[in-house]
């Protein structure tokens, strides 16, 4: 690995500098900083965290603890679109298992997996606060529901 190639680009570093101005100390801004870096670098792999540790002036171990504590950060490569399907009780009662199955049939991925073309990553989700629309799923920022397994193909097509 070349020592002078940055995995966190300058444009991301600029976004981080703006962020730090709003917080008393840099480490306080960690959750938002991780979102910014994940958005720009796809994921929070070890070499990304190495560089971020220098920017944040904090130990990588503490950042790693935070990254692995929260569900929405990933240390592995992620697809361009993230699918979350609720597996909690209200959605289960409205057959959310069939939505997982429909996604599997369409894309061939199970929770935690990414399609070979890098288009989608599927993740499990706990209650998405959309129980009146159970079974509910999210793709990126958008919430769908009630999802009919037969609609899954058409929904995925838009991404």
């Amino acid at each position: 690995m070349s020592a002078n190639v940055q995995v966190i680009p300058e444009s991301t570093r600029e976004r981080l500098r703006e962020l730090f101005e709003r917080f008393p100390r840099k480490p306080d801004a960690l959750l938002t900083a991780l979102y910014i870096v994940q958005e720009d670098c796809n994921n929070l792999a070890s070499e990304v965290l190495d560089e971020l540790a220098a920017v944040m002036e904090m130990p990588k171990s503490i950042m790693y603890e935070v990254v692995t504590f929260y569900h929405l950060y990933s240390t592995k490569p992620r697809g361009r679109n993230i699918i979350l399907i609720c597996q909690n009780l209200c959605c289960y009662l409205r057959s959310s298992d069939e939505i997982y199955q429909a996604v599997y049939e369409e894309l061939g991925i199970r929770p935690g997996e990414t399609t070979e073309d890098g288009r989608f990553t599927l993740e499990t989700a706990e209650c998405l606060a959309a129980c009146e629309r159970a079974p509910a799923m999210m793709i990126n920022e958008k919430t769908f529901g009630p999802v009919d397994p037969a609609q899954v193909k058409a929904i995925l097509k838009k991404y």
Partner: protein
Amino acid sequence: MAAPIIYRDIETPNIRSLAVYREKGGYKALEKALNDMSPAAVVEEVKKAKLVGRGGAGFPTGLKWELVSKDPATPRYIIANAEEGEPGTFKDRPILEQIPHRLIEGMAIAAYAVGAEEGVIVCRGEFMEPARILREAVAEAEEAGLLGERIMGKDFTFRVWVYRTAGAYICGEETSLLEALEGKPGMPRIRPPFPVNSGLWSKPTALNNVETFSNVPNIILEGADSYSSLGTEKNAGTKGYCIAGHVNKPGVYELPFGITLRDLIDNHAGGILDGRQLKCVFPGGASSSCLTPDNLDVVLDFPSVAAAGSMLGSAALMVVAEPTCMVEVSLRLARFFRHESCGKCIPCREGTCQTVRLLDGIQRGTGRKGDIDEILDLASVVRQSAFCGLGQACINPVVSCIKHFRQEFEEHLEGRAACCRKEEG
């Protein structure tokens, strides 16, 4: 019946925008507070209205604000808990997405009451869209001079920013939320000190649920007496009841405290799905014990649901109809808590894992004879020794399922249950 307070005007087109919100009387309550009331009078009015926290604990809001206002330390903070993550709860999302200015106005009144200049709306990680809408609303309010310096020409400064945590149920617990807001893993703090004295960055903090703040403009504008004329003696006002699962019309129904479970299911939620038989209801989300059809006449306020052996919590009613396998239901809830246990204390971290292990064995028919009782023993230990509310409550729903449907657990254990056979294949 139209929603009387929290969701009033929510059907009005574009009520999300500041202009329409103001046409409907929005920010008049803030104006009244700033012009006609002292901060102490605002606290007094909220106390008199008997408003209690809508996040689940039911703590008196006026008292909380009074404690913050009397702490000499500054700066003080206002925080709206928009972590909405208790399974079955979806009452705050419509406020955030459709009528965000009601929340902002409520927070501004709170800030005036306690002497805070900064507020944060803390959204759960998955609330990307609500967070975007809130940021737009905050910008609009700043533009109009309703947030910022010298609001309405008065000596009152208040700014709001929107923050998003990153996907952890525990962050709904107030001290975990504060940890997350300070950039750390959302692990609960020991209490006391309570956030009213030592909250964000160890400063006095009024931390309330979104729905709680959303009641405040009405209390100020219409007066405490009008507000407390709704509801029961112990719980004034209305509640956004969330009802989902096996009902025909799942949704949020804003009703005065005092409605019965039967009335809510039959007359608002359209009855049990497809005319099926009711099996049980979890009245306060995933950490509440289930109620059976014998409890249909329970009044849905905090003390009455507690007297029936459960808790109202955030009024997230998850309705289960026949024929649903209660072992599978228990396993879903147990897996949820295993996933969401923060790992800080051993009773919760291990207790949730062992509960799943035992239930899994029961479901597959590979468990041992005493496993059902072992779950009950384990639950009793975890309830008494876990660090925070999540741990203390997390095995209660499983215990309640065993209590009411023990026969189903025994049938699974003995390999006699037809419903879960497919799991073995």
